[in-house]
């Protein structure tokens, strides 16, 4: 059964058919949300919101673009709104980050059993560093990077989602990559300095203990 057929069934009152669309596209939406939010719980909540929103506005789906393109648009807009809310006010942001650290909520990639504490720490630090660099990109560049790197979409698909030309997307991705490169190198230098400081601190204490 094609997406259009499923949608017709849903619109004619068979609400349970929406499950078919959710099962088919939930990973895709979730991945987009992770790309923007870097947090499993937040991505999970937002994925639910996005599907609810999609269901509520299913009447507005004209079928001019594919359902996945339409759903991507909703996902991108919802993710950007969520990001804007998160970074809205510095005071709330600080309170939020405090609450998150109190709950130990910062989510990092899964860790395998064989990893030692030091490598886990380094991986977490690397994650934070890359996430910060990604988050500091302008919205349009960030969207293009998320869609291309996290969702592995082609330039044509991204152009369809963002309602622009392939050429514009190519230029946007180039700019985003160059910008990201600069931000990554800058923050990597900072992180390296920080690590060096930590290592010298540890070695000094080791000497004292001896």
């Amino acid at each position: 059964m094609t997406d259009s057929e499923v949608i017709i069934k849903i619109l004619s009152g068979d609400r349970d058919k929406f499950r078919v669309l959710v099962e088919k596209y939930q990973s895709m939406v979730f991945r987009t949300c992770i790309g923007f939010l870097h947090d499993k719980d937040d991505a999970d909540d937002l994925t639910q919101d996005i599907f609810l929103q999609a269901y509520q506005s299913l009447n507005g789906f004209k079928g001019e673009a594919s359902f996945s393109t339409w759903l991507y648009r909703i996902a991108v807009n919802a993710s950007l709104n969520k990001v804007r809310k998160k970074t809205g006010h510095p005071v709330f942001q600080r309170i939020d980050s405090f609450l998150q650290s109190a709950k130990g909520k910062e989510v990092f990639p899964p860790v395998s059993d064989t990893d030692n504490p030091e490598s886990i720490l380094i991986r977490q630090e690397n994650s934070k560093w890359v996430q910060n660099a990604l988050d500091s990109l302008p919205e349009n560049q960030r969207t293009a990077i998320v869609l291309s790197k996290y969702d592995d979409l082609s330039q044509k698909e991204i152009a369809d989602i963002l309602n622009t030309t392939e050429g514009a997307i190519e230029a946007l991705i180039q700019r985003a990559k160059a910008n990201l490169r600069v931000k990554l190198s800058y923050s990597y230098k900072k992180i390296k300095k920080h690590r060096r400081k930590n290592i010298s601190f540890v070695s000094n204490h080791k000497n004292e203990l001896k």
Partner: protein
Amino acid sequence: MNCQLCQKKLDAYREGILSDDMRTQVKAHLKLCAECGESYRIQLLADSVVNDEKMIIPDNDLTSRIMARLENSTETGYRNISPFRKVLKPALIITSLAAAIFAGVLIGNIYKPSVRELSQPLELALIDDVAIESVDILSNQ
């Protein structure tokens, strides 16, 4: 190959879409140039972080939770918010705000700050009690 060209070709090099000749040139430059080498390593690291994040998968019960929320939201009429409610909600907020301001002004008018008044007239307050007392003592004597 210079650094500028190498940096330009790094993405394509990582993605493995360079021609053989260009790939050899970039590879040779990365071995020689410490700065470009570091830039390459940073990008590889960033790629690995993105790939790690992509490995995070949603919980198995996500579909059920979405369908449950859908059930609840339609039951509570969340799906079709009537235009009347759309207008009523902001109107109610504005009215409450106006009422709160009005109540504030009203309470402000009822409350009168206490003014410190002298318990006795100024003339009496200025009289030196000690002096009077001493006069009394003197007159008794």
